[in-house]
């Protein structure tokens, strides 16, 4: 009995793949769409099937891709064969994939614009945050002053003062930069202060016994020590950083992935809107995966929790 | 404790076991392991690290299932936990979100149908027995290691199971409390109305001799030797430890642990001298 279920499980994604191809065949036949328009979708389906075949060894591949195929089939069926009055809200996947391919240049440009903004904002927040955190490390009184304030401010979503920032700053881009940087600044500050506070006393003492001057102390001991903490903070903050980025872009920017979604949303071109979602999803996953990889290479000297 | 010589309570019959690849990179395996435990007997599994004693206990507890061979309890094959066995681990596995009393009550509730009031009384009785009266409302994190282990033991005893499985229960406790708890366990088992069968894992020779009726010495995933402990119950620690019989028995056991050959016999002689 168990074996039968297991075999069924393994065969499921392939069956669904065939069902999907069959569905597209029907669409072709009905004349709803022509061969060229369906090509990207077909390519995607074939690609997915290839992955299933290549990674057949892992048990979960079958399950994951069954779900993915299933979603595609349901979506395609609902969008193509049902006639609802709000069908423009639910574009079928083949159109979405086609639009992704067609608009690829604009999408890449948007990605770069967004990335640039995010990077700058993050860099600003890190430089200011770490500098202030170091100062706080040296002066307890300053720290006791800064931490409660930072606690309060880190709770406030930066988007709240976005409209104000938009009015005050000469350009949307600067306002967006301000929002992102200030949103990231407070958590970075707090986390860096925490990691400085948690430095093992003995580590500090042995560093001091080496008679380092202040500059070396900071550059060679403290900063490397704080890097894992910073990394962890960043990975935690990345989702809110993206949220800030997109929120800021939604406020009136003229480029970036957030803009892409809003622009097309304003024009009710929901095909492109959904394509935009997918792009953002892929983007964020890639960034996370990249960060994971970097973390593993750079932080080989820490244990799993990211502490020395 | 009287030992009935009829059917065995626990039978381990030609058992082989290996941890699955994902879990057991460094863990031991068992190969064709066989032994019996009679009802009412206190058996110690003793051996060096990695010889498989904890693994054996986990099979008896039902946490793992033998790949080959059978584990039989009361003649029936078992491969899952049951109400007839209670377990204590080396690291006090108390549920940290339950107070001490609740931890014990939880165990009792699992094996008996009594009502709330009776369960509570029983829990309090056993906690008093292990010397923790007054700590019932504390959370585990508020207790010391020794006290936490005592709660574990109270939980085990209060479940009043026929079989007690104990995996180095006193291993993580400081020397003084260890003595206290060993004496406590011995006294409780000797005075218990019902016969309890105990399988006890330890790497402490003295502990094994003091507490058990029979010692199974494990080496390389098998039982290398079986020794009957020559002391009568009720046992008195002072008397036993100072007797000549004890010294000889202990030496035998010690030598099993460390078999010296060739050049190392000089060290052996030196150490033997100290003993």
């Amino acid at each position, binding site marked *: 009995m168990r074996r039968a279920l297991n075999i069924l499980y393994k065969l499921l994604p392939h069956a669904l793949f065939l069902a999907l191809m069959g569905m597209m065949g029907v669409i072709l036949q009905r004349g709803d769409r022509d061969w060229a328009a369906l090509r990207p979708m077909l390519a995607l389906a074939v690609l997915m099937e290839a992955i299933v075949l290549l990674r057949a060894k892992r*048990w*979960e591949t079958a399950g*994951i891709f069954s*779900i993915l195929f299933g979603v595609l089939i349901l979506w395609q069926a609902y969008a193509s064969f049902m006639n609802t009055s709000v069908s423009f*809200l639910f574009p079928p996947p083949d159109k979405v994939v086609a639009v992704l391919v067609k608009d690829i240049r604009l999408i890449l440009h948007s990605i770069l614009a967004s990335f640039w903004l995010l990077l700058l904002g993050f860099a600003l927040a890190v430089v200011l945050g770490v500098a202030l955190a170091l100062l706080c*490390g*040296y002066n*307890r*009184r300053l*720290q006791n*002053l800064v931490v409660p304030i930072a606690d*309060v401010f880190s*709770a406030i*979503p*930066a988007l*709240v*003062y976005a*409209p*104000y920032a938009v*009015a*005050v700053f000469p350009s949307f881009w600067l306002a967006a930069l301000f929002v992102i940087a200030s949103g990231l600044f407070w958590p970075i500050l707090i986390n860096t202060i925490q990691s*400085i506070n948690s*430095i093992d006393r003995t580590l*500090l003492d042995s560093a*001091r016994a080496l008679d380092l001057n202040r500059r070396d102390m900071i550059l060679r001991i*403290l900063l490397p020590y704080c890097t894992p903490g910073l990394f962890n903070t960043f990975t935690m903050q*990345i*989702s*809110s950083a*993206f*949220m800030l980025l*997109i*929120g800021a872009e*939604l406020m009136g920017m003229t480029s970036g992935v957030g803009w892409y979604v*809003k622009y097309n*949303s304003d024009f009710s071109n929901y095909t492109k*809107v*959904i394509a935009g*979602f997918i792009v*953002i999803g892929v983007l*964020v*996953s890639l*960034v*996370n995966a990249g960060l994971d990889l970097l973390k593993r290479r750079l932080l080989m000297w820490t244990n799993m929790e990211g502490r020395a | 404790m009287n030992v009935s010589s009829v059917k065995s309570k626990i039978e381990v019959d030609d058992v082989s076991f290996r941890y699955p690849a994902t879990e057991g990179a460094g863990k031991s395996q068992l190969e064709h392991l066989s032994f019996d435990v009679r009802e009412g007997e206190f058996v110690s599994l003793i051996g060096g690290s990695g010889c498989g004693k904890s693994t054996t206990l986990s099979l008896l507890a*039902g*946490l793992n299932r033998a790949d080959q061979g059978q584990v039989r309890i009361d003649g029936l094959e078992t491969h899952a*936990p*049951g*109400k007839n*066995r*209670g*377990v204590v*681990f080396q690291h006090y*596995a108390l*549920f*940290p*979100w339950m107070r001490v009393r609740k931890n014990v009550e939880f165990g009792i509730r*699992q094996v008996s149908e009594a009502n709330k009031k009776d369960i509570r009384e029983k829990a309090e009785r056993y906690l008093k027995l292990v010397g923790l009266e007054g700590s019932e409302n504390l959370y*585990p*994190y508020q207790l010391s290691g020794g006290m936490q282990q005592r709660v574990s033991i109270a939980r085990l005893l209060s479940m009043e199971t026929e079989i007690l499985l104990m995996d180095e229960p006193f291993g993580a406790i400081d020397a003084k409390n260890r003595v206290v708890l060993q004496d406590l366990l011995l006294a409780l088992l000797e005075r218990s109305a019902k016969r309890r069968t105990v399988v006890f894992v330890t790497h402490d020779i003295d502990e094994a001799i003091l507490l058990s009726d029979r010692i199974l010495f494990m080496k390389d995933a098998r039982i290398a030797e079986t020794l009957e402990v020559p002391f009568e119950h009720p046992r008195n620690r002072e008397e036993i430890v100072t007797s000549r019989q004890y010294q000889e028995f202990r030496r035998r056991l010690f030598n099993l642990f460390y078999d010296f050959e060739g050049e190392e016999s000089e060290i052996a002689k030196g150490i033997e001298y100290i003993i």
Partner: protein
Amino acid sequence: MNVSAKSALGELRAPRVQWSAFVPVLLCALLAAVAQWVPDGVENESHAPFIALLALLGAIGVIERRKQSARDILTLVVVLLGAWEIATAKAATSVHFLFPTPEMVLHVYLTDYAQIGKNIATTSLFLLCGFISGVAAATLLGIIVGWSVRAKKILLPIVKVLTPIPPLIYTPYLIVLMPSFFWASVAIIFLSVFWGIFLSMIFAVSGMDQKLIDMATTLNVNRAQLYFHILLPYCLPHAMDRLQQAITAAFMVLFNAEMIGNAFSGVGWYIAWNARFADYTKVVAGIFIAGVFVVLLKSILRRARSAVVRWR
């Protein structure tokens, strides 16, 4: 004078100045005097509420005069208030529409409090509905999926991909899709809160100490007992840790939705609406309200957490 505790990194102290314990209080009085008697350069509202605020701060200064950090913070606050007041009301000759005076902002609170109250109520209601449903669903499902090795293997990669996507981005879409703004905002908050907690619950269950699981196994717990007596209490602290992050995310998403959607009430809406009409006094007032609101909620959560999780 109390001595500063040793700083974390060593001895780099600012030159010691003899602060008296009452300096912040004195500053409050000074600022109040300046506000009242130095003539305004601009057309301004009554000074009374501002002076009342300073009196309040002064009272806090008196009560907390022993803690140096409290004194420092208070001093900083008063200095900033003073800078604001002087820059906008005293030194300037006309009110810049972007930079209202403190008196004008306070005046808004006094006159508009009914509407502000209504907005706060609306935002709170939406937030609660979305938040509670999201958290409850995420906790339960997270425990169930986290426990089942198979479900975890299949779902975890998918969830890891979906989690970081800011639900913010669905906002315009959901607003159009859902029958009403209420449902749209509940859906958005649900989505923003759900994934993070779901993921962290799965990790919490996966990372549970094997010894506890073994103990539960030997105690013959059945499925229901496992979920409700073992896994749930164990994972609750992890969930509560995440709650604070989650509520910040929920706020962000809700405010944003209110700002761009077809809402007609709510704190976010208040800010955006007035920004659209260039009434920046109200905008600033709204921002302060939002800030206080969020901070209050977070500290309530913090207290709830320590009350619920006493066993750590």
